[in-house]
């Protein structure tokens, strides 16, 4: 693949992410989502650089802002949106929702609503791969806020100590909810933290997807050889923390500047400048993707909600003792009465 072909592919990945997130937002406006805890990854599309550098057999865990990562790893948009809407055919049968999307088929070991909660799972997956002599890498995606969770450093130490095929990927979008990263962090050089724990550490410009891809490819190769690392993508969270947050804690000048760090726009500009693609063909691509996502949205909305009885399924494996529904318990107690 030439550089331009790669960049075009990455552009497509990123456009699909943004396009999907716009549909999530629209679905919320149309009151079709399950709840309002919707965290959009607009501005962070260059994670596609990491995702494309991964191999098909690699796996990953994500955080509450993980839609984009999963799209770039091959998610079916309609099933994602269905899950976000709490529908029966969503990735998790309408049980998990936006913050718990997972798909074992695509190596998605799960989004997580606990900040830092999924990081150690990637380490454990890597442990399994190493033990089973599979040449797979597990990638833990998470935000800058999770850089302050202790479990991350326990995980890093374990990964380095055991030479595990894992890549820690921090999406530093400058904010953890309303807290700018420098208000939560004494030393912003996150790469130093990685090195102090015996890992490789690199910080890359998240508005430059090629840079992200290049670093990810290198670090994934190292990880595959048992040299884990931390890759930090510096980017900007374009919108509020969750869909309804209007970010009153930051000013519009900052936002404007932040949104100039647009990985999508910069990829587009480069493609045109490098004659990798014409503006019209990119417009056509965008339109094609928009149609795909519109379609997915309508499909998700048309899907049906889960049957209430399914609520008792999946607590344990199907062949195992199940939870007793409350009404069954009450019946057992109270029907005694009418003796």
């Amino acid at each position, binding site marked *: 693949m030439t550089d331009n072909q790669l960049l075009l592919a990455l552009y497509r990945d990123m456009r699909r992410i943004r396009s999907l997130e716009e549909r999530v937002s629209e679905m919320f406006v149309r009151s079709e*989502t*399950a*709840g*309002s*805890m919707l965290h959009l990854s607009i501005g962070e599309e260059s994670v596609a650089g990491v995702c494309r550098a991964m191999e098909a057999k690699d796996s990953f865990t994500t955080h509450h802002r993980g839609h984009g990562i999963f799209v770039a790893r091959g998610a079916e948009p309609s099933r994602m949106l269905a899950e976000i809407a*709490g*529908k029966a055919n969503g990735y998790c049968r*309408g*049980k*998990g*929702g*936006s*913050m*718990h999307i997972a798909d074992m088929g695509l190596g998605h070991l799960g989004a*997580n*609503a*606990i*900040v*830092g*909660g999924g990081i150690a799972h990637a380490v454990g997956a890597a442990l399994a791969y190493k033990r089973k002599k599979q040449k797979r890498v597990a990638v833990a995606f998470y935000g800058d*806020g*999770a850089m*302050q*969770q*202790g479990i991350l450093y326990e995980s890093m130490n374990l990964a380095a100590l055991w030479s595990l095929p894992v890549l820690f990927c921090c999406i530093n979008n400058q904010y*953890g*909810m*309303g*807290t700018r990263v420098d*208000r*939560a*962090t004494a030393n912003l050089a996150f790469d130093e933290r990685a090195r102090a724990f015996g890992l490789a550490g690199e910080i890359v410009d998240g508005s430059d997807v090629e840079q992200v891809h290049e670093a990810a490819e290198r670090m994934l190769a190292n990880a595959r050889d048992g040299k884990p690392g931390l890759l930090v993508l510096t980017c900007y969270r374009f919108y509020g923390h969750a869909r309804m947050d209007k970010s009153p*804690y930051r000013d519009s000048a900052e936002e404007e500047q932040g949104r100039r760090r647009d990985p999508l726009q910069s990829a587009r500009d480069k493609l045109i400048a490098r004659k990798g693609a014409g503006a019209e063909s990119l417009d056509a691509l965008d339109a094609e993707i928009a149609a795909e996502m519109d379609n997915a949205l309508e499909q998700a909305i048309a899907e049906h*909600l*889960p049957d*209430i009885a*399914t*609520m*008792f399924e999946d*607590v344990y494996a199907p062949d195992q003792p199940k*939870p*007793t*529904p*409350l*009404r*069954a*318990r*009450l*019946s*057992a*107690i*109270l*029907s005694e*009465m*009418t003796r």
Partner: protein
Amino acid sequence: MSAVETTYREALRQALIDAMEQDPDIVVMGEEVGLYGGAYGVTKGMLEMFGPERILDTPISEPGFVGAAVGAAMSGLRPVVELMYVDFVGLVMDQLANQAAKIRYMFGGQIGVPMVLRSQGGTGRSAAAQHSQSLEAWMAHIPGLRVAMPATINDAYHLLRHALTLPDPVVFLEHKGLYTQKGMLDVSKPDGPWGKALVRRPGNDVTIVAYSKMVQESLIAADMLAAEGISAEVIDLRTLNPLDDATLVQSVRRTHRAIVVTEAHQTGGFSAELSARLHELCFDHLEEPVVRVAGEDIPIPVSPALERGSVPNAQLIAETGLWLVKRQAPGWAAE
């Protein structure tokens, strides 16, 4: 001073402000309590009022900042820590249960840990399995931790004020479904003393015991039951520790029937403690067993109808009451 209408959220906020004005040692700390004003807005505007020395935004380091609160409480401050969701308490149970709760005891009474850990739980926002739980049973099992769960606007204020005078750690659990509810607050008149359960509605045929949001569901259920000619007494526990079983016992010995309602999972929940105590202490006065109406023993699903179905509501409480008192089985009763 007379009562004014306000919200649960505002009452909590007012309690914090009034307490902080009186006690300079109170500091508020937690994620997003300052600039953001609290994930549920309870501390809105307080950073401006009290400054960053007393309203501390913390990094996302729950064990670290709860641990720091413990040390601060041992050193002259009275920290109010906000844990954004009670679901995150699994990260800090060591600091809560092994440290805060036991320090006075392990150190032979030398010092206490006067801190308040505020958090909120419950369903209602399709926030899924890791943001919708009711985990009070974990804390209520640990000697040394006081646990308060206000159901009313007036209690939100007064229980929090009282918690902020206590010498021992208090876990103060709000409900995400109550913040916007309106009601009367009289800052000069608590609903009742700390540690006392209150009869929120008197009745004769059955006692319904609840706390937090389930008090409201129980009151609605009592209305429904009244329409069926059943007089239900509704008791609000208010604090799980101290636990006022005397008030419950008094009621149940009179009504001879009781339902205990919690949003938390039934198995191993605090409803079991209440049921056990009532049976132990009212056995000869009971016509029927005390019945628990509690959350299903399943993680909370995200899809709204499933989420609603996983926890009790007024209808279910009323149906149970009707069955218990009048032996009218509901439609879902198994033959």
